[in-house]
C-alpha cells in the first residue's frame, strides 16, 4: 500500500507541530522518520495512523483519501514504544484481540482465530509462551507480542513508534536485524520513528530527516550521510565540524586567509566537513591552529584544534593518524578533502 502525505499541517493549541509536510512512501518500503525530539516525527506517524487529525492537508492510502477516516477504519498496525499490551490478557488473547473485536459478520470462527494467533506467535518466535501474561515476559518479547498483535488484523501498513527505544543496547541490535528480516519476508509498507541515526541508517530503505516540524531531506542512507542538503542534516547525521568562511574570487577564505578550497559562488557561507575527511599538510594554504585536546578513538586519534583569533576561537575536531604528533599545544595544519558550503 502506497501512502501519500500532502501538505499536512498539524497544530496543537495553535502551536504548529508540522508545517505543510509532504511525503510519498512507496509500497513495500521500509522507511525511517529520523529527527531530534520535538521535530514532529511522532506526530507525522500518528497522523498517518489516524490517532491524530490533521489541521490541514490530506493523507492518501493508495488512491483513497484517508484523511478523515478514524483509526479503526484505517486498518493500520501500530506498535507503541512502551508496547501498550493488555496486561490482563494472556499473550494469545493479546494477539487475538484484533480479530475478536471484529463485527460478527467479519469475525473468523473461534478455532480459526486461535490458529492464526498461534501462527503469528510462531512468526515472531514466541511459540510456547501463549499462556503467559505480559508481565512475565522480557522487554524484547513484549515488543514482539506487540508486533504480532498489530499483524493479526492484516494491516495495509505497519507503523512503529520508537519500537526499540525502551530496550537495552544488545536486544535492540538483535531486534533491528530481526525486523529487517521480518519486513523482507512479509513485504509490508513499514514506517518507523526513531531518534537513533544508526538505527535509521542501518535499517531503512529510505530515511526522512525531520527538524522543527519540517522534512529536511529524504533519501537513502548514502544520500543523507554523503550528500546532506542542509546544515541541519550535515550536523545531525554523523560527526561534523563547521566554520564561518567567506568566498572571494572563487577561493574559500577562513579568518582572512585562503584555505586552498575553491567554490563557484562568492559570499559569506558556512563550511562543513567530517572529522575523517581531512588531510594533514606540511605546507601550502590550509587551516592552522594549536591542538587543545586529543583523544584516542579505537584505531584513530581525534584532535581538537583551535582556529581563528584568540578572542573568537572556533574549535573543530579532526581525525589524525596515530603516528602524527598531536600533543596539546602542537601546531597542526589541515585541509578538508570532502566538504560542503552552505550560503
Amino acid at each position, binding site marked *: 500500500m502506497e501512502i501519500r502525505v500532502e501538505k499536512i499541517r498539524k497544530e496543537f493549541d495553535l502551536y504548529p507541530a508540522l508545517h505543510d509536510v509532504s511525503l510519498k512512501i512507496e509500497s513495500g518500503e521500509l522507511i525511517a522518520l529520523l529527527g531530534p525530539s520535538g521535530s514532529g516525527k511522532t506526530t507525522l506517524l500518528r497522523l498517518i*495512523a*489516524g*490517532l491524530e487529525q490533521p489541521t490541514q492537508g490530506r493523507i492518501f492510502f493508495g488512491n483513497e483519501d484517508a484523511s478523515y477516516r*478514524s*483509526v*479503526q477504519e484505517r*486498518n*493500520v*498496525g*501500530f506498535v*507503541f514504544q*512502551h508496547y*501498550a*499490551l*493488555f*496486561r*490482563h*490478557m494472556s499473550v494469545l488473547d493479546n494477539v487475538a*484481540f*484484533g480479530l475478536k*473485536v*471484529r463485527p460478527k459478520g467479519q469475525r473468523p470462527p473461534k478455532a480459526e482465530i486461535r490458529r492464526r494467533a498461534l501462527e503469528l506467535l510462531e512468526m515472531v518466535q514466541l511459540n510456547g509462551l501463549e499462556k503467559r*501474561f*505480559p*508481565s*512475565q515476559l522480557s522487554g524484547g518479547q513484549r515488543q514482539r507480542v*506487540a508486533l504480532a*498483535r*498489530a499483524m*493479526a*488484523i492484516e494491516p495495509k501498513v505497519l507503523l512503529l513508534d520508537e519500537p526499540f527505544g525502551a530496550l537495552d543496547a544488545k536486544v535492540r541490535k538483535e531486534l533491528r536485524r530481526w525486523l529487517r528480516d521480518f519486513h523482507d519476508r512479509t513485504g509490508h509498507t513499514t514506517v518507523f520513528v526513531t531518534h537513533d541515526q544508526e538505527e535509521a541508517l542501518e535499517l531503512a530503505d529510505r530515511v526522512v530527516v525531520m527538524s522543527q516540524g519540517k522534512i529536511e531531506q529524504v533519501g537513502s542512507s548514502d544520500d543523507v550521510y554523503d550528500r546532506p542538503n542542509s546544515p541541519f542534516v550535515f550536523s545531525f547525521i554523523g560527526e561534523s565540524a563547521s566554520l564561518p568562511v567567506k568566498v572571494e574570487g572563487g577561493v574559500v577564505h577562513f579568518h582572512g586567509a585562503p584555505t586552498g578550497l575553491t567554490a563557484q559562488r562568492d559570499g559569506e557561507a558556512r563550511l562543513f566537513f567530517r572529522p575523517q575527511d581531512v588531510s594533514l599538510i606540511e605546507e601550502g594554504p590550509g587551516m592552522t591552529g594549536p591542538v587543545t585536546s586529543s583523544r584516542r578513538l579505537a584505531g584513530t586519534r581525534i584532535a581538537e584544534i583551535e582556529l581563528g583569533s584568540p578572542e573568537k576561537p572556533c574549535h573543530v575536531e579532526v581525525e589524525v593518524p596515530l603516528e602524527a604528533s598531536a600533543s596539546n599545544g602542537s601546531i597542526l595544519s589541515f585541509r578538508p578533502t570532502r566538504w560542503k558550503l552552505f550560503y
Partner: protein
Amino acid sequence: MTSARSAARWHWKNPSVIPGFGLTLGFTLAYLTLIILIPLAALAWRSASLGWSDFLRLVLDPRTLAALRISFSTALIAAVVNVVFGVVAAWVLVRYNFPGRRIVDAVVDLPFAIPTAVAGIALTAIYAPNGMIGSLLAPLGIKVAYSPLGIVVALIAIGLPFVVRTVQPVMQEISQEVEEAAASLGASRFQTIFRVILPGLTPAILTGFSLALARGIGEYGSVIFIAGNIPFVSEIAPLLIVIRLEEFDYGAATVIATVMLIISFLMLFLINFIQAWSRRRFGYEQ
C-alpha cells in the same frame, strides 16, 4: 514458568536489606490484638455464654432478622451504585481537564471529613417530603427520607469516596497508549471500555466495593436521621443493637453484633478471595 513457580512458593519472609521484620510483625500483631482481636473475642465469648438455644432464639427474632436484612441489603445496593458512579467520577477526574476539576476532586473527600450525623441531617432536610428535592419527588409517589431508600441515599453519600479514591490512582496508571492500541486494532469505543479498561480496573473496583460495603454495613450516624427507624421497615441492625443496650438486654445486643460480624467477615473474605484471583488472573503479580 520458573518465575511463576517461585512466586507461588510461600516465603517466611522476603529477604530485605532493611532489618526489622521481627519487630514490625510483632508490633502489628500486638496492635491488632489490642484494638481489634480482644474486643471481638470478648464479643464472641459473651454471646457464646448464652448457649445455643438462647442464641438461636435471639437471632431468629423477626425484628432482628428484618434489621439485618435491611442493613445488608441497603449497604449492598449502595456499594453497587457507588461502584458505577464512583468509576464514572474517577474517569472524569483522571481523563478530563475542566475548570474547577481540583475543587470537584476535593469535594469527593468531604464525606470523609464531615461528621456523619451532619451528613444525615443535611440529607434528611433535603429529601424529606417538605425538603428541596423531597418535595419534587413526593408528587411522584417517591418517598426517600424515612424509608429504606433514604438509607441507601445516606450510604451512597458516605461510601462514594472509597470507590473513587481506590479506582483513581489505578486508572491514572492505565496509559492512553493502551486505548489507542485497542482502537488501532479496530475496537470500538464500547469494546475498548468493556474489554480493555474495565477488566484492568477490576481489582481496584473490587477493593473500592468492599470498602464501601463494609463502611455501609457499619454506618450508624447518618442513617438514623434519614431512616425514620421504623421497626421491620427502616430499622438498621446497628440501631437495634443500641436499642437493646438501652433496654439493658446485653445478650440480644451481643448476638446481633456477633451475627453481623460473622456475615461481614464472610463477605469480606469472599471479596478478598475474588480479588486475589483476579489479580493473578490479570497478571498484576508474577
